[in-house]
């Protein structure tokens, strides 16, 4: 078989440059490939090659009912399921022109922040093992379990909650949840101090991350970086503040910002975010009003048995009309701040039971560019340090 000449592209590699293919089968690559060109031990060029875990999520969403897109989109970043899907429901509620009752908003915010803490701890664990610190890896992953179990108490699921409904949530806060959370919060606050001793202030870790992978504020803005990575470079950009949704406008919290922009700042920024998240959940549990957890439009459709379940067990059943949801024709967008940055959802409805178009822009997709611009000039051994500090998650970028 002959291949037409124009189908073959050749690329000239500079002399004395070693081309290294890291991934997709490599312990330090994740579900993607990096083409690294090395001059000695220095990286001169890094090409992130994405798409290895592309699952056509946007197209799949067009082929299933509105509500069934939730378990699908959760799989973009399964470790941060609540924050990933909240944007979809915000957009859908705009299409339906409804707003969830206040109690449901607070419950949503609580779950989102639990999810954020768990996701950050996951990212720390990856950074830990990339720097060869197996104890940090095990500790972070072990302590993440506390928040996964907290979410399980609330939603009945460890990771893929499928907890939100258009105009509400599936379950009310269980009894004793406040005490459980207080226990978890005290535990993680104690542990954060221990992490400082063994990981953050560990001299070996410190020299590996300090001044490595510096992202200047100017560059962060120019590349359109979002989330903790931007905030660690001095860009105060947080959707929870700029376009507040759910219970965030009523809660008092700060957005931690660091100026340094190196791997250490990105890590410390996330540590501060965990502290802020604990603050948010504490406030939300205290300020949470009583009332229904689902919009009255759907409450009216409830049968007697469904109402009984809601009142006695605090579980909101899904009425038949919600499965065959038909939002009026139109389009809507929503933004939400996930653990890794801003999620953008754009939905188009033609009045049918399925979305006409569902478009998602995920934070990892926007941050993947950093690999190309942040790596050159550093040593090969800095590659995992920078990668770990970016908290990049390939399935989220590929969708």
């Amino acid at each position, binding site marked *: 078989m002959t291949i037409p000449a124009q189908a073959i592209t050749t690329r000239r590699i500079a002399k004395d440059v070693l081309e*290294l293919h890291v991934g997709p089968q490599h*312990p330090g690559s994740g579900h993607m490939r990096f083409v690294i060109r090395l001059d000695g*031990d220095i990286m001169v060029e890094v090409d992130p090659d994405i798409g290895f875990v592309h699952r056509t999520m946007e197209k799949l969403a067009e082929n299933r009912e509105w509500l069934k897109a939730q378990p699908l989109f959760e799989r973009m970043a399964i470790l941060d399921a609540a924050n990933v899907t909240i944007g979809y429901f915000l957009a859908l509620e705009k299409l339906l022109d409804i707003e969830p009752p206040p109690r449901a908003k607070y419950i949503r915010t609580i779950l989102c922040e639990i999810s954020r803490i768990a996701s950050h701890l996951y990212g720390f664990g990856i950074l830990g093992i990339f720097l*060869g610190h197996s104890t940090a*890896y095990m500790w972070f992953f072990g302590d993440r379990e506390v928040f996964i179990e907290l979410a399980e108490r609330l939603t009945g699921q460890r990771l893929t909650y499928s907890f939100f409904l258009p105009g509400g949530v599936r379950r009310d806060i269980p009894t004793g949840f406040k005490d459980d959370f207080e226990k978890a919060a005290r535990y993680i606050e104690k542990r954060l101090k221990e992490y400082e001793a063994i990981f953050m202030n560990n001299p070996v870790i410190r020299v*590996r991350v300090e001044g490595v992978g510096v992202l200047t504020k100017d560059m962060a803005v120019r590349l359109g970086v979002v989330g903790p990575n931007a905030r660690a470079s001095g860009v105060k950009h947080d959707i929870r503040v700029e376009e507040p949704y759910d219970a965030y406008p009523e809660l008092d919290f700060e957005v931690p910002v660091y100026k340094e922009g190196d791997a250490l700042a990105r890590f410390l920024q996330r540590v501060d975010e965990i502290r802020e998240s604990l603050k948010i959940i504490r406030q939300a549990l205290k300020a949470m009003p009583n009332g229904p957890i689902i919009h009255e439009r759907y409450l009216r459709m409830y049968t007697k048995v469904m109402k009984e379940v809601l009142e006695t067990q605090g579980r909101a059943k899904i009425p038949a009309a919600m499965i065959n949801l038909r939002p009026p024709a139109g389009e809507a967008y929503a933004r939400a701040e996930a653990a890794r940055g801003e999620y953008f959802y754009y939905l188009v409805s033609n009045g049918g039971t399925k979305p006409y178009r569902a478009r998602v822009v995920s934070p990892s997709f926007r941050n993947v560019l950093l690999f190309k611009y942040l790596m050159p000039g550093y*040593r090969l051994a800095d590659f*995992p340090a920078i990668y770990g500090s970016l908290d990049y998650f390939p399935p989220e970028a590929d969708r």
Partner: protein
Amino acid sequence: MGVIATLIDLLMWPPVFYLVIFPGFIFTFVLLIILIWAERKVAGRIQMRYGPLEISPRLAGALQLVADLLRYLTQEIIIPRRADRFPYFIAPIAAFVLGMLPIVAIPFSPHYYPIPMNDSILIAAALTTIPPLLTILAGWASNNKFSVIGGARESYLTAAYEAVILISIASIVLAYSTLDFTKAVMLQEQITWGILLNPIAALAMLVGIMMATSRFPFEIVEAEPEVVMGPYTEYSGIMYGLCMGISYVRMFVYNLIFTLLFLGGWHPAGLISTGSFVVDSILVPGAIVATKAIVLSLVMVFARSVYGRYRIDQALAAGWGFWFVIALLSLVVSIGVKAIIGWRA
């Protein structure tokens, strides 16, 4: 009579017995199993998990390594098509065996050694420098970019740590004025342990050993997220098992040398006397030396629970810029020590 008796005779012939059974291959192998098990158990304890437990739960998973090795034995050995076959095959095997070879020069008691020699310290130190060459060879023969990078890292680090280790050994030898392990230990029994005579040399050698055997924070050659498995990336099956064992064997051998030079060797053994030659001259001193070396090895593997890994340039800067200077300084200390104790020795 015949073959079996001849074989037993051969095994009981002192040089063979020494190299194959105690403290040679079999003894080291058993210690290796205990050492790796202890490492994994201690790390598990720190890291909120059990460590090995599935195989032999009653022994707290102590047989896990044996099970792993049996699995390695039954695994297919895949040879890359482009590998240079002969060096590829020979490198890990030779590195493992040569890593154990310095034992020929290491006495376990004043009366128990394979070959009587006057320059045993020199021979042991010289033999420890061979395995890194074979590691570099393994990386080169694999014909894989990650292996080559790993081999290059090993070659840089070898130069850095070997200078530190050899100068530390030279400085303590200067203080003892002998190249014989037995005399060095006897001298320590008279005066005091080497670690007190020249603590700086001891410290420099400890760090050098950790660098030499890629213990954390110097686990740079096989850094997983960067170079997969370094020089051993292309090995599979029992060859991979051998590669994993090389650094442990080398660490144990280095620690034996350290024990004899700095920790007084079989020092308190002279206090025990039962009248039996085997107990007094082989078992008790041997157990003391092995215990000291094992405890030291455990301290070294414990570092992996506390530290991450350095970058290669940071490790080299530490090796040449700091520990090399410290090792040179220990020479001065030894001269001072010699001036003080010289009249006694």
